[in-house]
């Protein structure tokens, strides 16, 4: 199945997720006009998210994103790990009650 979702982070930038998933995420692209450097950290994050269960909670997704960005010494501006996690959940179509993005 394919899914996508796009949000404008309040006081931030646009983040969009396009993914292909079944029980787990098969492929994912995180797009937008946010800033992240080193820029290679985003590719690394997408790689880490492939294989993650598509029923993973927003909280766990946030943790995975946070840890990956930390490991890559990434600086992110205009979007936050929890905003990315929220958009991933929306893209999977399993939107949780949180609507902070």
């Amino acid at each position: 199945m394919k899914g996508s979702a796009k949000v404008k982070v309040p006081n931030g930038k646009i983040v969009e997720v396009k993914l292909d998933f079944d029980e787990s995420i098969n492929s994912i692209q995180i797009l937008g006009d946010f800033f992240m450097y080193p820029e290679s950290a985003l590719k690394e994050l997408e790689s880490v998210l492939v294989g993650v269960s598509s029923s993973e909670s927003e909280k766990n997704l946030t943790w995975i994103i946070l840890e990956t960005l930390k490991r890559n010494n990434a600086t992110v501006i205009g979007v936050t790990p929890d905003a990315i996690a929220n958009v991933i959940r929306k893209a999977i179509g399993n939107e949780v009650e949180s609507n902070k993005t």
Partner: protein
Amino acid sequence: MKWRVIRLETRSAYSNMAIDNALIEGQKSGASEPTIRFYKWLPSAVSIGCFQSMNDEVDIERCNSLGVSYVRRITGGGAVYHDNKGEITYSVIAPEGLFPKGIIESYKVICGWVIDGLENLNIKAEFAPINDIIVNGKKISGNAQTRRDGAILQHGTILYDTDIRTMFSVLRVSAEKISDKMIRSAEERVTRVKDHANATQEELYDALLKGFTNGKDYEFGAYTEKELKRAEELEESVYSKNAWNFSR
């Protein structure tokens, strides 16, 4: 610490982005001096942010029919239309230590040079975090920054009299939306130097030059052979390639 200033020059989209890339690499090796460059794009071009999808952001067919080029930047941020006749772009490439560690603070410093430049034309502009400069609430300049290997690259555009209709026809807006309403709506969000000052583009460049160099030790210079060679390699292997430009 002396800055090298590269006078306003015109290059292709690929070459402009390759030069910026070569200069930020050169900061690490010490091969490049801290540099301020001003440039234009020929042909006119769209640059997209590092994390944007080319096909989602840019009407490629429209660009091809108008002869407008397109390139992916190494910096994040959004899609920008660089009108050959209606816009000036700058880049600042220097050791990170010359700027505040905080991202917004460092944007504020360099955007302050743009604001000082506009002030020389009696245009009251202000910094609008994260990365915009506005006049009366409307965007006149967009800016994008990255840092790597201890160096900072910030580049940005200053709208002079950009053709708004063309801008919104190459940026991804469906043809039926290019109505008067759409143009009016765009004009509500965007403004240009020409809307505020009776200045020529040369006068804008002079004003920016003063804004960027005020209080600095600087001299006009040229790229080194080594920088140009590296830029040519990057242009050939990265910026002119679909593998890079359509990687998302």
